[in-house]
């Protein structure tokens, strides 16, 4: 890894933290502000690629674990990794890695729809699978109940998928050469 790779990992870990400090999105119709840290997951994956994107989120989680209040709502510390919903957090680095990997694979044909599809696979399917698997395995919640309990969060995450995909496309057009091929 070059010094630039290390700096990019740190910067995107920091972006994910900043996304937790401010509500970035407002849900249409309901007007509920959504803190958008999974945007950081999707951005890190689609802009940095698998390796650097996954590591950026890993760095972020380690900093949360050692006691920085970087999660939305100023939460942090070792305790959040023992909670009922910790599986969602553990999924983030894997999701960023997967989004990055799929982006690298489709780099030549990358467009808005592929970006949306990739973000859905990594940012929703994988994150929910991780979160729900944790609830079922660790917290003993029946699978169907865990599924239904997670449904209300899907609209917000769908919005984030769209925003992250549009941002990735806009940035790709802008940043083609300096960023180069991810990974």
């Amino acid at each position, binding site marked *: *890894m*070059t*010094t*630039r790779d*290390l*700096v*990019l*990992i*740190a*910067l*995107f*870990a*920091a*972006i994910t*933290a*900043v996304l937790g*400090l*401010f509500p*970035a*999105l*407002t849900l249409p119709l309901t007007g509920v502000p959504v803190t*958008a840290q999974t945007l950081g997951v999707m*951005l890190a994956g689609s*802009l940095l690629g698998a390796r650097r994107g996954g*590591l950026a989120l890993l*760095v*972020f989680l*380690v*900093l949360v674990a*050692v*006691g*920085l*209040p*970087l999660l939305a*709502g*100023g*939460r*942090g*510390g*070792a*305790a*959040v*990794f*023992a*909670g*009922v*919903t910790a599986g969602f957090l553990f999924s983030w680095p894997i999701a960023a890695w997967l989004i990055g990997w799929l982006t690298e694979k489709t780099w030549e044909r990358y467009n808005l729809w592929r970006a949306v599809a990739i973000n859905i696979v990594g940012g929703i399917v994988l994150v929910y699978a991780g979160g729900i698997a944790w609830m079922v395995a660790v*917290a*003993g*919640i*029946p699978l169907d*109940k865990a599924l239904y*309990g997670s449904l209300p969060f899907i609209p917000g995450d769908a919005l984030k998928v769209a*925003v992250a995909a*549009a*941002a990735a496309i*806009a*940035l790709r057009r*802008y940043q083609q050469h*300096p960023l180069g091929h991810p990974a």
Partner: protein
Amino acid sequence: MNLSLYQPGTSPVHRLHAVWKLAGLFAAGIAVLLTESPLLLAIGLASVLACFMLARLPLGAVLRQALPLFAVLAVFFAAHAIFTSPELGTILVLRFATIIGCGLLLTLTTKVSDMMAVLERALRPLALFGINPAKISLVFALTIRFIPVLADTWMSVRAAQQARGLGGNPLALLVPVTIQTLRRADQIAEAIEARGVEL
């Protein structure tokens, strides 16, 4: 911006070395899985609470972190009471509450720098696999330094876009912030290398 949950103090809990507190957290994590007796688990939770009393932490700081976690636990207990059994719910809630309590105590009584020191020592064996631990330390230090910088960037971009009437557009915020970040990456990398930092 206060970037730490640490609450200064001089109690025995504060003075205990971070390694021992971490070891205690892991031990508690294993211990609660070894028993299904609500009585034993309740004793465990009570001893964690006793440690909180011993640490004499400000109540507000504890509640600010604890309430969101325990709100989830309340919903979780209700779900178990309805769908499985209240007995199972009680056991699981006691387990989670004990571990969450231990984690909270660790975080509130331990400086981030002490935790990082333990982490860096734990990462030292990675050198055997060709990974330079100094690189990892650099990334953590850079991230902590970048958070307030990027928060500033975020606020100035947000103010600029609000002035243009784009305050409600997440893309108008996210794209410029990310572009500035990517540009900055080159400058910072050059600056690090120009100072001859050997990685």
